[in-house]
């Protein structure tokens, strides 16, 4: 889903940089409030792991491939602020050293995979936790959040691509549909991986999850033991 330079109009690329800027500022400030000592090694480990996970390209449909994004698990385990910064680091290294995603389109890639791919799964996850209030809700929320996050990120990428080629009839519709359908497949995979990692963390290292900080008002009533 990494958009290379040349695929987007300059105006779209600039707009995406402007859109991402406040999220970077809030995230850098937010990290200083919520990221704990214990979470720093987790942040570094997950960032490295999902960089590596993005090197694996799974065949999907029509001879195309896709890879996991990692945004949902970063958001749920570290919170959205550190999640966005982790995704930004991954995308920056990929663009700078490997040409995987452009420099001019870096803002668009961070918007798609960092902002949408991190904040949307996080919000959906919180919603499910709020409704279900048990571990099952946490895992279902993680799965659904990851799926919606991946599909929406792909739809945004299609939208940016389609809006950059206005001379091509139905370009937005074609790009959005193709990206959305194809990435719904990888979204299922992302959802399963996210729920699996979260399940392991809930069993082995629940202290690493900052669930109380995510939802301080109602979390005390949640039983995090297996339901």
């Amino acid at each position, binding site marked *: *889903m990494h*958009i*290379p*330079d*040349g*695929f987007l109009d300059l105006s779209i690329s600039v707009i995406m940089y402007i859109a991402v800027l406040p999220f970077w500022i809030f995230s*850098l400030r937010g*990290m*200083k*409030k*919520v*990221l*704990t000592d*214990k*979470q*720093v*090694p987790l*942040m*570094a*480990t997950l*960032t*490295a*792991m999902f*960089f*590596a996970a993005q*090197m*694996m*390209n*799974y*065949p999907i449909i*029509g*001879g*195309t*491939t*896709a890879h996991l994004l990692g945004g949902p698990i970063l958001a749920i385990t570290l919170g959205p602020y*550190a999640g966005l*910064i*982790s995704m930004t*680091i991954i995308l920056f*290294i990929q*663009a*700078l*050293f*490997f*040409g995987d995603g*452009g*420099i001019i389109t870096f803002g668009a890639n961070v918007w798609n995979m960092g902002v949408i791919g991190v904040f949307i799964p996080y919000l959906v996850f919180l919603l499910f936790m709020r409704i279900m209030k048990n571990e099952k809700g946490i895992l279902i929320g993680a799965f659904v959040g990851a799926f919606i996050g991946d599909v929406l990120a*792909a739809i945004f990428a*299609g939208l940016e*691509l389609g809006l*950059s*080629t206005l001379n*091509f009839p139905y*370009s937005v519709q*074609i*790009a959005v549909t*193709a*990206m959305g359908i*194809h990435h719904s497949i990888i979204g299922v995979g992302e959802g399963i991986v996210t729920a699996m990692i979260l399940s392991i963390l809930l069993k082995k*290292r629940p202290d690493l999850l900052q669930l109380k900080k995510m939802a301080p008002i109602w979390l005390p009533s949640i039983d995090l033991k297996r339901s």
Partner: protein
Amino acid sequence: MRESKRMITIGIIVSLVFVIIGCTYLSLSQETLDKVAEEFGLSESSLWSPPLPDYELPGLEGNIFANIAIGIFSILMILAFTFAIGNVLKARK
């Protein structure tokens, strides 16, 4: 501290497995985005020349061992870089 070291070790091992699989069995990349862009007649035009384009060492393209070495180096670099950033930006007591 001990638990953190254990977690980082497990993370590095899992990442290495991902890199090896990514450089061997799941190395072929033909993303939907590229296909859609191709249909629109868009082509890549970068102002920046990355030192390791497409995760390959110039002159050793297609060499699996070189690709795995790049992957390992990248993992360790990202681990160290993120650790440093996390330490600078973490909450102060």
